[in-house]
């Protein structure tokens, strides 16, 4: 194994010609983290005995779910072992990119920090939709693409087939596709050599005012916000004062340096270099991805392009199951926001659920991750309402409403309702074309086109209302294609649609948490299904409880939960008393997990049921 090369240039004193900035584009499970591990070992920056799997993925949740949310940059010294640059030590900055559709903007900023990318694809599975989307992003950014098939040691690997597929996509020859096994390390050395040989060195103006682009910003409870930057022009030096160009906020550089892979302070960062800086800010929103950093004195006039504020696309109400946990929920959201500039929330009150927050997310994964972290890291029991999108409602009187919560859908005369739409791309084996098209049609999709990537794999493009994919589309897609399909989507605007609000009434009272906005043609089926499900999930009470679905004042579905008539143990003698008391304690615990909606006790599962759409639920009746 090659050891760390000698004479490694230090940060701030590295010739840009020796720098290679690259990232790895890969689908979840295609082996990006394992490949990164091998690179860390091969370049000697992590000693063998300190190595652990998926070294760079810090958060437990990331490691458990096998996904990377937060990117980082690692400075790797590498002297190519063959070719023209053989023996000359280069600096490779490997920038880790998030792998999911919700974080496209963060991905685009990571790509903007690079000159080239390794396109890593599982040799047994071929390219997936998100990888393809990121590949297109990389191509738009004029990055040099190095195609790589991973896991060629797997018996199921089909390197010829997928080499062909990659070659078709990026316009190279199939034999230019590198074949590696990140697991065994096969081909990784060759890949590092190729990074040096093929990826262009960064080009910038060394004596211009400093301009550095933020491509990531991470909150660390010990150090505050750690900001990852790529210096484009000029130089940033330690202890100088800097300015964030989008907000004009100024900070002092408390520390600047690079990661190899732990943080290592340096004197500064020069043209083309990648590293971190710490200013003492405590909130990632003060150090936003995409923003440009310049020196306070004699700083740049013009920011680098491409900065956008993250915009939430999906909203959900989050409520503590136990109302007294509300302050804890607020505190937890505050803490998460330190590290998640895309997370927005504001307090809201639900008649059914009490005090909670309406929380905006970039997408569904973002929602899942946030909810899971709230429950796991902060120990909160939460009820989340069905996710919804943002509607723009035009009234006949000319007023306009932005609706982020279905229960706030305006009453009265509506002129037009607009919903966000996305352009969705599905990649799948061609045998599933029919199933995919059928699914997209039922979700009000409009087909845009279809292309064969290889003989038996297709790319299908649809315009779909975002609302139709925010909750169970992906699950259905997976089950209809035996797990083979992959999905990517990007917002493309909005469309006018015939949308109505369906309310659920429990014992005559509207339950705001159950209200949904749906297409008129789907409203009836939705109402019938939900009412049947609630009847099954809500235990019988001491009184009869009608469950109704209504559009405005028109009831479209109704069920009745019969009153419970018997709830008494027949026998209670000497030996029964302890058991009975313990049963009572258990029942009290169970009761605590119920939400009182008016006079009706509603179990948590009922709220969750609104989210799921499995068809089994509505079928069996009257079991309770």
């Amino acid at each position, binding site marked *: 194994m090659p050891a760390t090369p000698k004479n490694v240039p230090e940060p701030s004193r590295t010739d840009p010609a020796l720098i290679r900035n690259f990232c790895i584009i890969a689908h979840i499970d295609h082996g990006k983290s394992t490949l990164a591990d091998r690179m860390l070992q091969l370049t000697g920056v992590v000693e063998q005995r300190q190595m652990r799997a998926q070294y760079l993925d810090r958060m437990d949740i990331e490691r458990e779910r096998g996904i990377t949310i937060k990117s980082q940059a690692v400075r790797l010294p590498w002297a190519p072992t063959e070719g023209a640059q053989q023996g000359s030590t280069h600096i490779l900055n490997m920038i880790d990119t998030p792998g999911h559709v919700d974080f496209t903007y963060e991905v685009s900023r990571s790509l903007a920090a690079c000159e080239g990318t390794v396109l890593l694809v599982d040799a047994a599975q071929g390219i997936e939709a998100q990888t393809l989307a990121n590949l297109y992003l990389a191509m738009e950014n004029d990055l040099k693409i190095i195609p790589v098939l991973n896991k060629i040691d797997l018996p199921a690997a089909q390197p010829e087939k997928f080499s062909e597929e990659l070659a078709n996509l990026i316009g190279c020859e199939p034999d230019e596709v590198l074949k590696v096994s990140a697991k065994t390390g096969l081909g990784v050395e060759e890949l590092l050599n190729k990074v040096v040989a093929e990826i262009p060195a960064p080009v910038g103006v060394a004596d211009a005012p400093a301009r550095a682009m933020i491509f990531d910003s991470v909150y660390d409870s010990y150090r505050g916000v750690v900001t990852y930057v790529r210096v484009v022009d000029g130089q940033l030096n330690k202890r100088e004062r800097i300015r964030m160009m989008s907000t004009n906020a100024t900070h002092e550089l408390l520390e600047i340096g690079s990661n190899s892979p732990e943080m290592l302070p340096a004197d500064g960062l020069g043209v083309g270099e990648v590293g971190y800086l710490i200013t003492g800010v405590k909130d990632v929103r003060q150090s936003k991805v995409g923003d440009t950093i310049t020196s306070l004195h004699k700083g740049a006039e013009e920011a680098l392009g491409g900065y956008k504020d993250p915009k939430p696309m999906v909203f959900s109400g989050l409520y503590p199951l136990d109302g007294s946990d509300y302050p804890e929920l607020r505190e937890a959201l505050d803490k998460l926001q330190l590290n998640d500039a895309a997370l927005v929330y504001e307090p809201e009150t639900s008649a059914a659920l009490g005090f909670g927050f309406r929380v905006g997310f970039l997408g569904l994964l973002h929602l899942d991750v946030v909810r899971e972290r709230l429950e796991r890291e902060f120990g909160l029991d939460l009820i989340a309402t069905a996710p919804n999108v943002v509607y723009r409602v035009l009234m006949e009187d000319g007023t306009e409403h932005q609706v982020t919560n279905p229960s706030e859908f305006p009453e009265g005369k509506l002129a037009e309702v607009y919903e966000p739409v996305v352009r969705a791309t599905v990649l799948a084996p061609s045998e599933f074309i029919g199933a995919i098209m059928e699914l997209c049609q039922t979700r009000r999709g409009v087909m845009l086109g279809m292309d064969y990537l290889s003989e038996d794999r297709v790319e299908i493009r649809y315009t779909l209302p975002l609302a139709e994919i925010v909750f169970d589309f992906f699950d259905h897609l997976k089950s209809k294609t035996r797990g083979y399909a992959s999905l990517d989507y990007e917002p493309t605007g909005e469309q006018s649609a015939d949308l109505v609000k369906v309310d659920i009434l429990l014992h005559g009272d509207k339950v705001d948490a159950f209200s949904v906005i749906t297409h008129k043609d789907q409203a009836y089926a939705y109402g019938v299904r939900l009412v049947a499900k609630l009847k099954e999930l809500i235990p019988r009470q001491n009184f009869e409880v009608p469950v109704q679905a209504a559009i405005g004042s028109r009831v479209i579905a109704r069920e009745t939960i019969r009153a419970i*008539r018997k709830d*008494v143990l027949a026998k209670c003698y*000497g030996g029964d*008393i302890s058991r009975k*008391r313990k049963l*009572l304690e258990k029942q009290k615990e169970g009761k605590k997990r119920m939400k009182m909606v008016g006079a009706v006790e509603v179990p948590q599962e009922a709220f969750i049921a609104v989210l799921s759409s499995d068809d089994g639920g509505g079928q069996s009746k009257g079991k309770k």
Partner: protein
Amino acid sequence: MPSALPDGEPVPEDGALPGHALTGAAGRPLGFYLHVPYCATRCGYCDFNTYTATELRGSGGVLASRDNYAATLTEEVRLARKVLGDDPRRVRTVFVGGGTPTLLAAADLVRMLTAIREEFGLAEDAEITTEANPESVGPAYLQALREGGFNRISFGMQSARRHVLDVLDRTHTPGRPEACVAEARAAGFEHVNLDLIYGTPGESDEDWRASLDAAIGAGPDHISAYALIVEEGTQLARRIRRGEVPMTDDDVHADRYLIADEVLAAAGYRWYEVSNWAAGGRPEARCLHNELYWRGADWWGAGPGAHSHVGGVRWWNAKHPGAYAAALAQGRSPGAGRELLSEEDRRVERILLELRLREGCPLDLLRPAGAAAAARALADGLLQEAPYAEGSAVLTLRGRLLADAVVRDLVD
């Protein structure tokens, strides 16, 4: 008594009670429950601690047999004497239950009673009950019990219908329990109970009315009527799971209960506990022993798996007759575990037990949240108005059917 034992702390080897358990004991009645863990066959719905083998061996080869069972149990009565020390109380009630106590010779049951009389003495008006299987007793047997001191007898009638008895695996002939009542009267028993079960799969409202009529016709002074509980692990639970017999709906149980209360009330029987009715509402027709359970009195439960309660300490014996006999043979307490009730435990138990009684539970046992719940229960028609006004929570007929739900709210 259900067969599963609760979790608890260990019982000291000598069975000693914490000192506070006997504080104020003189003011509380003391009863004895004697468990006989033998049956000729196991009924499909039964999960009680009972065995059909006549001989069961414990560790160390100690033999627990039906034939020497009275002697084994007598040893526990002597242990009770030691544990209760100089407690001067005479025993107010004795209740022999099972299993099938009448699988033992009448002389054995009398021997066990004699042990209590010798060690503790019986109160002058003591109530001495045994459960009895209609097929295993006759006039001579009943005569022997009566002469030996028993004055109350409880027959497991369950139903008057053959097809219902078949589902329950009860082998007695319809009509036999009613005949037993007459035989018991002839033998001099003043107090006779018939146990009925409703809601057995396959039973109709008509079947249930017929059973009630038959029981009333026999003229016992006490009738118990229990909804069939299908316990996990029983043969009946398996048959229901396999779809061989239908599960009875809770609403049917509710209907049958209403029928029972109506028919029994019309015949002059008045409820005094959710599942128990006494002829003419006479206090002496009630089962005094069961009232000890419901009013937090002291009782010593002797026999395998039996539960005891003395002054806030509950304990329970080893379940298996072999293990039980082995402990006594080695001079150890057969207690397998116990719990010391906290003030709050005792408050909760009082509510859950006393609310089931005709006299109800005092409202001043309730905390503010429970009191508010009681006011709601009153408004919902689950509690009676007149007693409420006088400070007691007493269930209405509908409230009795929802007693557990009311308890859950009242203990808040």
